[in-house]
């Protein structure tokens, strides 16, 4: 029997009826939740299960491998070499990207004029170049026999591509490519944020005797610092996952390549998957990447305050 509650001035409300009422919120969100479980949460869980499994002709024997896959991957010198490569790359690329983007954005924001708007628009464009095109374009750009920058290269004593583009400079070359791709977007983002600083605040600081440089450092910089952490963590995570550019360079240059086929963890993982068909070892590489990614995203959400989860119930 349905329980009835009666309030003064109200008609009878059936609690059971209320509970049964279809919630359209759930209905509207279900397709997305299924997709997210299938293509974001699912793969992560699958990687955990597969990392403890053995594979015979693609058929998994779940949880029979124990820690074998982990031991095999750890014993593979390519695994640590790949992480050593991307960690060094990440340090150089993140530092240059962070310092360069913030410094240029602050410099642009010193005054508001058409030049700043022009710069923001132009610097933003390289972000549109797709990974393969970018990697190939930079091989041409760094070739002193073809590049528009060849006078500078000649001054530095580089006469042919291999004088700079070689295994000793791999980290630097990859960092230049990343800086070219990413920095313009970040400059545009920071510049947009800096333009949002209230005019009253700027005026008040000017009245207090703040010059343009002090204004940039003490008033404008703190406005973007919260967001800078978001940028730095995202850059580190993205740089550690790099695949497209080194893969294309290794493929395009063949035997003459300065990048080996297992240069990054994702390149090594794709080798385990496609060439060795060893999903177990590939899962171990994937888990290492997922741990880094989820740790960074948890940090961003909980510590930087860049995103809101406030809802009214």
């Amino acid at each position, binding site marked *: 029997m349905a329980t009835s509650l009666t309030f003064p001035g109200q008609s009878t409300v059936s609690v059971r009826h209320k509970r049964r009422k279809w*919630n*359209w*919120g759930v*209905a509207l*969100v279900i397709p*997305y*939740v299924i*997709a997210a479980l*299938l*293509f*974001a949460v699912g793969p992560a869980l*699958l990687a955990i299960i597969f990392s403890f499994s053995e594979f015979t002709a693609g058929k998994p024997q779940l949880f029979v491998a124990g820690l074998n896959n982990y031991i095999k991957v750890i014993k593979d010198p390519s695994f640590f070499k790949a992480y050593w490569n991307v960690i060094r790359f990440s340090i150089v690329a993140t530092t240059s990207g962070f310092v360069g983007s913030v410094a*240029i954005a602050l410099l642009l924001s*010193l*005054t508001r004029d058409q*030049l700043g708007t022009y*710069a923001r*628009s*132009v610097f933003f*464009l*390289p972000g549109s170049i*797709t*990974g*393969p*095109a970018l990697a*190939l*374009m930079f*091989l*041409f*750009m760094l070739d002193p*026999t*073809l590049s*528009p920058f060849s006078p500078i290269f000649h001054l530095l004593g580089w006469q042919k591509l291999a004088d700079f583009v070689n295994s000793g400079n791999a980290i630097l070359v990859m960092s230049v490519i990343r800086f*070219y791709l990413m920095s*313009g977007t970040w400059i545009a*983002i920071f510049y947009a*944020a800096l333009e949002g600083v209230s005019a009253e605040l700027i005026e008040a600081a000017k009245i207090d005797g703040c010059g*343009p440089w002090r204004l940039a450092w003490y008033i404008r910089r703190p406005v973007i610092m919260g967001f800078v952490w978001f940028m730095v963590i*995202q850059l580190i*995570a*993205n740089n550690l*996952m790099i*695949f*497209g550019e080194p893969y*294309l360079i290794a*493929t*395009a240059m063949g035997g*003459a390549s300065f990048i080996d086929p297992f240069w990054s963890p994702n390149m090594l993982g794709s080798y385990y998957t496609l060439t060795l068909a060893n*999903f177990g070892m590939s899962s171990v590489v994937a888990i290492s*990447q*997922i741990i880094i*990614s989820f740790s*960074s*995203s948890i940090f961003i*959400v909980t510590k930087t305050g860049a*995103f*809101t*989860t406030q*809802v009214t*119930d």
Partner: protein
Amino acid sequence: MTTNSLSPKAGMQKDSALSAWLRRWIFRTGIDPMTWLLRLGVIVLMSVFYIVPLIWLIVAPTKTNQQMAELPPLAIGSIEYVGKAWAYLMQFLSGVLSRWIFNSFYYVSLGLILSISFAVPAGFALAVIPFRLRRPLLWMTLLVMLVPGDALVLPMYMELFYMKLIDTQWALIVPAASFPVGVYLVFQYYKATMPADLVAAAKVDGCSDISMFWYIGVPLARNIIGTLAFTQFAGLWGGFFAAQLFIDNAVLKPLPAGIAIIVSQCGGILPTTLRCILNPEGHTIARAEIALLGVISTLPVLIVYALAQRMIIRGATAGAIKE
């Protein structure tokens, strides 16, 4: 005498004219001329760094291999050679290039439809309709949104392998349905455009949740769909790792993965690695053809970037920053 007596005065007038000009300058720009010049210098230098490679990429397909070595790097060869470079590329694997371009547009279009049609209702529900699990779902969305796409490609390959979707077009279309960045952008958008008071007023007027979505949410969505589409377009078009891993059949590849096939089979970057002899005349895929591939694969995203910069910035930061 007269001149001598006027000199200090003239000097003073000159000084005061200069300081007046300086004051006007600082009043107008907010910075002194030296800082302004430094700023200008950095803008010019960085413009050269960002734009010259793009200009080179665009003019390179107009030059033959020989012209590339002889002409200045930014000189234009002949527009006709672009047609020839295209014809040489079309001789590769019986014109598979046009199929790659079609595939890219096809996968991206279906991916966009799927991702937007899933993201809009989900973002609306999370922002407007109270239901249990709303907060955990929002947290899940945020965490997944901030995970770089390439981190999940390897395990997704295994999942798609057992779903028997590897080496089918669906491997590159269906995963687009999970678009957490889009869901979060829509959530923020509806939070701003449909405040709690408005929702409460609509409910008092007898508007059910679903009618609110249909009669208020859907018409309002027109303003956010552009941001979603432009944000997702760049990601879907340029996605390389997934395309490289999920599709083995050369005919089903999208353009970025197709470029990898051409450079792996034909070389084309170094003069010593020209490996594709296309016809009896000895034409080959070389630097101009590779540059043309770069232009073709970049042009759609470049147009989108040029037209919708503000929307893409909003998407890149998932709206965490106010423009």
